[in-house]
C-alpha cells in the first residue's frame, strides 16, 4: 500500500464513480469478514488465561438516512460482497488479510506507544540519549515497570517482539496463507515506522528515513533468527537474545525483568499454540492481555540450585524488589 505522502496526494485526486464503488465494495468485504468473525468466534473454545468481559449492548438509535443506508447495505452490498468473497476468494483474500493484520498489528504497536509533541519540539525540550536518540513521553508497563526509555527503538523492539510471537503462530498456516499474513503484518509495521520517523521525529529527508528503515529491516531479520534460536534451544539462549535486542546489551539490565519477559514469551507461545486458526485471525492478540510484569511473581520463586540459600519472602502486590 502507498506511503504517507502518496496517500496524501491520492486524497486530492477526484474519485471516479467506478472507484467509489470499488471502495464501497472493499468496505463491505471487511464488513462481511467481520460477520464471519462473529460466527466463528464460537470456534475459540480453548480457555485462555485472559478472558474478556462481554461487551455491553449498543443502544444507538439510527436516523432515517442511516436506516436507508443500512437497508441498502443489508439488501444489496453485503450479499454481493459475501458472494464475491466465496467466488473470487483469491481476489478478496488480500483485502480481508489486510484488515485482519491491521487489527493484529495495532495491538502490537500500542504496547510501548510514545509521543513527542510539536510544542515540546518548538520549545526545544526534547531530550536525547547518549547515542543521540530522542526521548519522548510514554507510559505503560514497558516504560514504567521495565525501565525502558520511551524512544523509537524501544517502541520498535517491543512491537517486533509482539509481532514475532504472532509470526511463530502464523507459520503454522498453509504456505501461501503464511506468506500473505506475515508479509501484510510486517508491511503495517514498516509503514508506521516511517510515519513515526516523519511525524514524531520530524525527519523530513526521505533518504535518511529509507536508511533507517533498512537498518530496521536488518534488525527485524535478526530478531526473527535470535528469538527462533532461543525458543528452540532454551531459556538462557532466549534470555541472551532478549537482552541483546530489547535491552540493547546494556550492563545494568535487571535480570528479574529479563526472566519475566522470557517467561511471558513462553506463556504467549503456549496460548497461541492452543489457539485454532480461525480464532487466531480474529482475536489472536488477546494473548497479549496478560502483562509480562505479572510473571515477576513466578520469577522470584527459589531456584533448585539456590535451595537453602535463598528463601522467598512473602510480598504484597508489587512488581519491584
Amino acid at each position: 500500500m502507498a506511503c504517507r505522502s502518496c496517500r496524501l496526494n491520492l486524497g486530492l485526486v477526484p474519485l471516479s464513480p467506478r472507484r467509489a464503488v470499488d471502495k464501497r465494495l472493499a468496505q463491505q468485504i471487511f464488513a462481511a469478514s467481520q460477520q464471519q468473525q462473529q460466527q466463528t468466534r464460537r470456534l475459540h473454545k480453548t480457555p485462555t488465561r485472559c478472558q474478556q468481559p462481554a461487551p455491553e449492548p449498543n443502544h444507538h438509535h439510527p436516523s432515517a438516512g442511516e436506516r436507508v443506508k443500512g437497508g441498502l447495505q443489508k439488501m444489496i452490498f453485503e450479499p454481493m460482497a459475501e458472494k464475491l468473497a466465496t467466488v473470487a476468494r483469491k481476489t478478496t483474500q488480500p483485502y480481508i488479510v489486510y484488515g485482519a493484520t491491521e487489527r493484529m498489528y495495532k495491538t502490537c504497536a500500542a504496547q510501548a506507544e510514545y509521543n513527542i509533541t510539536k510544542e515540546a519540539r518548538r520549545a526545544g525540550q526534547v531530550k536525547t540519549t547518549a547515542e543521540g536518540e530522542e526521548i519522548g513521553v510514554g507510559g505503560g508497563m514497558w516504560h514504567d515497570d521495565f525501565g525502558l526509555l520511551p524512544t523509537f527503538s524501544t517502541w520498535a523492539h517491543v512491537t517486533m517482539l509482539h509481532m514475532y510471537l504472532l509470526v511463530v503462530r502464523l507459520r503454522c498456516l498453509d504456505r501461501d496463507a503464511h506468506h500473505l499474513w506475515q508479509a501484510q503484518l510486517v508491511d503495517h509495521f514498516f509503514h508506521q515506522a516511517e510515519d513515526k520517523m516523519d511525524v514524531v521525529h520530524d525527519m523530513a529527508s526521505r533518504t535518511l528515513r529509507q536508511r533507517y528503515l533498512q537498518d530496521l529491516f536488518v534488525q527485524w531479520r535478526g530478531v526473527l533468527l535470535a528469538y527462533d534460536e532461543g525458543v528452540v534451544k532454551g531459556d538462557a539462549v532466549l534470555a541472551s537474545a532478549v537482552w541483546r535486542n530489547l535491552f540493547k546489551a546494556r550492563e545494568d539490565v535487571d535480570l528479574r525483568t529479563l526472566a519475566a519477559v522470557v517467561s511471558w514469551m513462553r506463556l504467549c507461545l503456549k496460548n497461541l499454540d492452543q489457539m485454532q486458526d480461525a480464532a487466531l485471525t480474529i482475536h489472536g492478540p488477546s494473548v497479549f492481555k496478560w502483562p509480562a510484569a505479572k510473571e515477576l511473581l513466578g520469577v522470584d520463586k527459589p531456584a533448585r540450585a539456590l535451595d537453602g540459600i535463598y528463601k522467598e519472602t512473602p510480598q504484597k502486590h508489587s512488581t519491584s524488589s
Partner: protein
Amino acid sequence: MSGAARSLAFKQFQRALERWPKDPLRPECQLQDVLARRLEKGTLAPPSTASLSGAPKEEAELKQVNALYTLLEDRYKVKYRINGQLLEPRSNPSYYTDLVAELEEAPKRTWFGRMAKRLGGLIRFSPS
C-alpha cells in the same frame, strides 16, 4: 553475617555465569562477559536498587542470582511447555531443525563457504 551472605551471592553469581551457554555466533557480545563486570564493581543489583542498603540490598542481589538460575534450569520452557504443533509448522515442517543445523554450521564456514552460500542464495527455486 551480611558479609558472608553477600559473598555467597557473589559466588553463586559467578557459578551461574560459568554455566551460561556460550554463543559461537556472537563472540563479542556475550551476557556472561558483561555481567562479570558487576562482580568486579562489587554490586550485583541493577542501579534501580542502588538506594538500598543492608538486608534489602542482599535480598535484591539474591533475587538477581535467582533469576539467572531460573533461566539456566529452563524453568519457563518446562512450565509453559508447548504440546501442540507450534514447533512443526505446517508451512515448513523442517523449519526449526534446518535453523538449528544452519546455526551449528555457520560459525565454522570459511570465507569461500560464505561467498558460495551468498551466491547460491541469489538463485531461488520456487514451485509456482
